[in-house]
C-alpha cells in the first residue's frame, strides 16, 4: 500500500509539474519556451505579467478543478456502483449551472452564486435519488441523467433568453467551460473547498471500497451505507457547485480520469482517490494547454477539449459495458 501510494505521489507530482511547466511557458507572446525562460530571467515586464498574473492563476485553477472533477467522478462511481456515473453526465453540473444563472439574473453577489449553484446541484441529486431506478441497472441511471441534463439545458436556454446581450456572451463562454478568467481570489476560494474535500474522500476510501460489496454486506461490515453515501454525495455537490460557478460545466473529466487510473492502479479507493487528485489535476492542465495551442486565432474553452476526448471514451466504455 505505502509503496503504491509513493509511486502515485511521485508520478502524479511529476505529471503535474510537466503540465504546469507547459501551461506556464508554452506559447508566451509567440516565443519559444527557452526564450520565455530567458526573458523571465532578465525580468522582462511583459513576460512576468503574462506568466505570474495570467498563466499561473490559470494553471493553478486547471489543477484544482481537474482534481475536483476526477475525485467527484470516482466518488459518484463508488456510491452509485456504476462505472459511468459522473456529476456532469448525471446532470448535477447542469443543475448547478441553472442555480448559478438564476443567481446572475437575480443580480446576486458571487458568494450567493456559489450557494445557488449548490442548491441547484443538491436539487438535481435529490431528483435522481427520488426517481430510484438507479438502484436497478446502469442504463436507467444514465438515462435519468441524460433527461435531467436535457431539462437543465432547456432551462438554461430559457433563462438565457431573459438576459441582456452582455450577460448572454459571458454566460455562453462560461457555460462551455472556461479557465481563462482565473483570478487568485477564485483559486484561494476553490482551494479552501477542494483540497480538504479531496483529503476527506481519501480518508473515506476504505469505506468506499466496502460500498462496492453492496448495502447488505456493507451493513454487515459495521458501516452505514446510506449515511456514507449521503455524506459523500453532499460534499462532492459542494465541489461541483464551486467549480461550476468559477469555470462552468467541464464535462467527462470525472469519467476519463478515474476509469483510466482504475486500469493502472486498481479499484482500491485508498489509491484511486490520491491518484485522481494528482493525475486529474495534470489531465485538465494538459487539456487547457491544448485548448490554447490548437486554435490558430484565440483559444477554445477547455470544456470543448475535455468533451472531444471524453464523449468518444464514454461511448467506448458504454459499448464494452465495462
Amino acid at each position: 500500500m505505502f509503496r503504491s501510494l509513493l509511486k502515485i505521489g511521485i508520478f502524479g507530482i511529476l505529471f503535474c509539474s510537466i503540465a504546469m511547466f507547459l501551461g506556464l511557458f508554452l506559447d508566451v507572446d509567440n516565443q519559444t519556451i527557452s526564450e520565455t525562460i530567458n526573458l523571465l530571467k532578465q525580468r522582462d515586464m511583459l513576460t512576468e505579467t503574462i506568466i505570474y498574473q495570467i498563466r499561473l492563476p490559470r494553471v493553478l485553477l486547471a489543477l484544482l478543478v481537474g482534481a475536483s472533477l476526477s475525485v467527484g467522478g470516482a466518488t459518484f462511481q463508488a456510491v452509485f456502483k456504476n462505472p459511468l456515473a459522473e456529476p456532469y453526465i448525471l446532470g448535477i453540473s447542469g443543475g448547478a449551472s441553472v442555480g448559478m444563472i438564476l443567481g446572475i439574473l437575480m443580480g446576486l453577489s458571487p458568494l450567493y452564486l456559489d450557494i445557488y449553484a449548490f442548491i441547484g446541484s443538491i436539487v438535481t441529486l435529490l431528483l435522481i435519488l427520488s426517481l430510484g431506478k438507479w438502484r436497478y441497472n446502469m442504463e436507467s441511471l444514465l438515462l435519468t441523467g441524460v433527461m435531467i441534463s436535457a431539462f437543465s439545458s432547456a432551462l438554461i436556454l430559457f433563462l438565457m433568453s431573459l438576459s441582456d446581450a452582455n450577460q448572454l456572451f459571458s454566460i455562453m463562454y462560461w457555460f462551455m467551460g472556461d479557465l481563462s478568467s482565473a483570478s487568485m481570489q477564485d483559486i484561494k476560494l476553490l482551494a479552501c473547498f477542494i483540497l480538504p474535500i479531496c483529503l476527506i474522500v481519501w480518508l473515506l476510501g476504505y469505506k468506499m471500497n466496502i460500498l462496492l460489496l453492496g448495502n447488505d454486506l456493507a451493513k454487515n461490515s459495521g458501516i452505514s451505507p446510506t449515511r456514507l453515501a449521503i455524506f459523500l454525495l453532499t460534499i462532492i455537490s459542494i465541489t461541483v457547485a464551486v467549480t461550476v460557478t468559477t469555470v462552468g460545466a467541464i464535462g467527462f473529466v470525472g469519467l476519463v480520469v478515474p476509469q483510466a487510473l482504475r486500469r493502472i492502479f486498481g479499484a482500491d479507493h485508498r489509491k484511486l482517490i490520491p491518484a485522481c487528485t494528482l493525475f486529474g489535476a495534470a489531465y485538465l492542465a494538459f487539456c487547457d494547454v491544448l485548448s490554447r495551442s490548437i486554435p490558430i486565432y484565440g483559444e477554445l474553452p477547455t470544456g470543448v477539449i475535455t468533451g472531444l476526448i471524453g464523449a468518444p471514451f464514454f461511448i467506448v466504455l458504454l459499448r464494452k459495458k465495462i
Partner: protein
Amino acid sequence: MTNICYNLNRICLAYGKNRILNDISVSLPQEKFTAIVGENGSGKSTLLQILLNQLKASTGDINFYEKDLSLWNRKKLAQQIAYVPQNFPRDIQLSVEEIVSFGRTPWNNAFGFLSSKDKEIIHVALEKTGLIKLKNKKLTELSGGEAQRVFIARALAQTPCVLLLDEPTAQLDYKHQAMLMHILLQELEKKTTVVMVSHDINLMAQYADYILLLKKGNILDFGEPQKILSKEKLKELYDCDFTIKEQQLSPIILPL
C-alpha cells in the same frame, strides 16, 4: 439446557397488505446448526435479514444474546454476526484477497490497515475455502462457485459468533459443498452458531442440529431433523409427495 442465541417473539413483517412473515416465535440455540427450509417465497431469506437486523419487523421483538437486537451497536453487531448472501456483486475490480480482507472491517481501523493477526486470519480463511491460489485474481475473473467461496471466506475472516448463510451451496459443486459443510462443522466446534437457509433438505438432514420449516411466512415446525422430517410434514410443506429411503447414515429424501 441449551443457551439461546436468538429469541424471536411474535415477529410479523408486512409490505402493505402483503404479509411476508406471520407470528414467528422461535428460540434459536447457541453453538448449534439451524437450517431454515421451505418453498420459494416462504420468507426464509427475509427471516435471515431480520436476524441480521437489516430488516425491521413490523411487530414483535427479537433478542440477540438476551439483548434487544435493535439496541445493538452496528459495529459490535458486525463483530458478532457474519453473513453470506444469496446474491453477491460480481463486477468488483478488486482481488480475492482484498475482498476477503473486508471481513476484518468490524475489527480494524477506519483506513483498513491490517495487523499481522488480521493477515493470519485472512490467510486461514483463504486456505479453508481453497482460494489461496486464486488470491491475487480479480473477482470478475472467477466462476460463480469460486466467487461464492470468496464471500464465504469473507464471512469466516470476520471471526463471528454467529454465521448466517443464505443458500451458500447454490452455486457450489459437490466437492465444494462438502468443503463448506466441513468448514461449518469446524466453526461449530469453535462454538459458532450457524443459521443457514437451504433448499437441500438431504444435506440439512445430515448436518443440521435443528430444522425450521417455513410455509407462507408461518412456522410449520421446528426441531431435530429426525423428529420433524416425515413424509406427511414434507407434503404439507411443499404440497407434493415424498419418499424417504432409510440408509445407515442418514435417510435420503426424494420428491415423487
